[in-house]
């Protein structure tokens, strides 16, 4: 039994009820934050307003740098509240080191719990001491971190992504693993798993004066007439892209990164005019690095775009596969679908895309 100072919670005990576990710890966080008069920051991401309530301050440096563009300074009513706590700083009960529930379910294999009809959902990485708990019936969650020391680089680039996803489900917007770029008149959504060229083409777009709402995750509202909204102020480059866009990489927030770790770059710092609040989306393309001299854009089936969009989104969000599929399908019904075979030179690819978009707009 570990005292939080407010509510005694049994931690580390074998629990048979994920629902109860989730609700208990969210309540504990609520009470702790209230008792210690923690700081609250409101952010707006598309239609969703989230109140991030910090217990302690260590997680501010993890969460806020890539969400500062979205901070709401005036009065606003939050749709979702997320409590953020790093336990080593605050003495809040630590998350379990091992999955504390029965292991014999597919969800347990994924380290998730998904009960949105009643409310409680979670996604965990107990090997790194990072747990995301949420009660969708109340739209209150807990970003529960053992320590901020040694957090993987992707947490700094996309903290709270699960809570943002869960909150977005309640306001008819989606979080999708894709990039969105615009030549000023038409917006292209570029979908594909890691390594498909989304970040490379986005970096080329930014250098060329195009606009973007993101290279990795974007918010999409109104799938019938889709609009993308910026989410995380971060561009991630690695390998050849890091070399090609060296001036971006030189501004990385993680200069001491390990080999193989992506360079995390603030878009608003690298190209302030590029990173815009929202863009209309008029076409969706599945991206593929062809390594050919010339880039091509060819028609694609809905199945191709489902393959480009749904698996990578679902593997990163880890829950709500049915909702991701439904939302993506609605989007694909309303957008023309193409495959973007990106050649060796992303700037040449951008020229091809520009001509294509102008032709589409006729």
């Amino acid at each position, binding site marked *: 039994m570990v005292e939080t100072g407010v509510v005694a919670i049994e931690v580390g005990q074998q629990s048979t009820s994920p629902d109860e576990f989730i609700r208990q710890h969210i309540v504990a966080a609520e009470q702790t934050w209230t008792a210690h008069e923690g700081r609250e920051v409101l952010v707006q991401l598309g239609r969703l307003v989230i109140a991030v309530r910090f217990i302690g301050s260590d997680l501010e440096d993890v969460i806020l740098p890539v969400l500062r563009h979205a901070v709401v300074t005036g009065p606003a009513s939050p749709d979702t509240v997320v409590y953020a706590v790093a336990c080593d700083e605050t003495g809040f009960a630590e998350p379990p080191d091992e999955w504390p529930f029965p292991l014999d379910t*597919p969800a347990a294999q*994924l*380290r998730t719990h998904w009960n949105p009809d009643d409310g409680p959902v979670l996604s965990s990485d107990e090997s790194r001491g990072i747990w995301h708990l949420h009660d969708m019936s109340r739209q209150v969650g807990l970003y529960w971190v053992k320590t901020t020391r040694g957090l993987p680089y992707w947490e700094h680039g996309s903290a709270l992504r699960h809570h943002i996803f869960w909150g977005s489900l309640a306001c008819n917007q989606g979080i999708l693993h894709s990039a969105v770029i615009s030549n000023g008149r038409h917006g292209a959504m570029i979908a594909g*798993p890691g390594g498909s060229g989304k970040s490379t083409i986005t970096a080329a777009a930014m250098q060329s004066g195009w606009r973007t709402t993101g290279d990795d995750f974007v918010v999409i509202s109104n799938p019938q007439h889709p609009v993308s909204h910026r989410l995380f102020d971060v561009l991630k480059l690695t390998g050849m892209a890091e070399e090609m866009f060296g001036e971006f990489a030189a501004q990385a927030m993680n200069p001491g990164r390990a080999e193989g770790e992506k360079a995390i770059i603030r878009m608003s710092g690298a190209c302030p005019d590029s990173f815009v609040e929202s863009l209309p989306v008029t076409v969706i393309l599945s991206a593929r690095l062809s390594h050919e001299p010339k880039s091509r854009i060819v028609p694609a089936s809905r199945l191709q775009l489902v*393959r480009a969009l749904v*698996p990578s989104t679902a*593997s990163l969000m880890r829950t709500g596969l049915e909702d991701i599929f439904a939302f993506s399908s609605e989007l694909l019904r309303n957008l023309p679908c193409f495959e973007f075979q990106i050649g060796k030179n992303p700037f040449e690819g951008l020229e091809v895309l520009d001509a294509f978009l102008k032709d589409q707009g006729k």
Partner: protein
Amino acid sequence: MTYLLLDEHKVSSEDFDGEMVAVNFSTGKYYGMKGCAHDVWRMLATPVSADEITSGICDIYGTENTAVQDAIAVFIDILRSEDVLIETGERPANGKAGSSTGLSGLAYEAPELEIYSDLQELIMLDPVHEADPEQGWPLRRLPEDG
């Protein structure tokens, strides 16, 4: 008589103007469909027997039963192996067999199910969780000795 029905708790599908795409939530696999597979899939939205499926396909495409029956049986076996079907000995009172209007003007082609396991593969490559190089991910707790 055995009636077959898609298990909507496990699988969801979208019809994009004749292009059918489905997702199996329990396995993370998703499916594309070729030939008359999308017609069979539509018929399985309500309890239907294999014979009724065969008859329905023959009506849509004007083909002989013998050409279709074996292909339908193979397709149904694949769906069974993907664990997306419910089998029941009863059809609800006043229930009607599922139907499909087919895509006009197309010749009959045997149903084919394209199976994609990209999501499963991505999860196994998942960098978010630490994977044991020998056991893969997720790690299982070992049974206690004795």
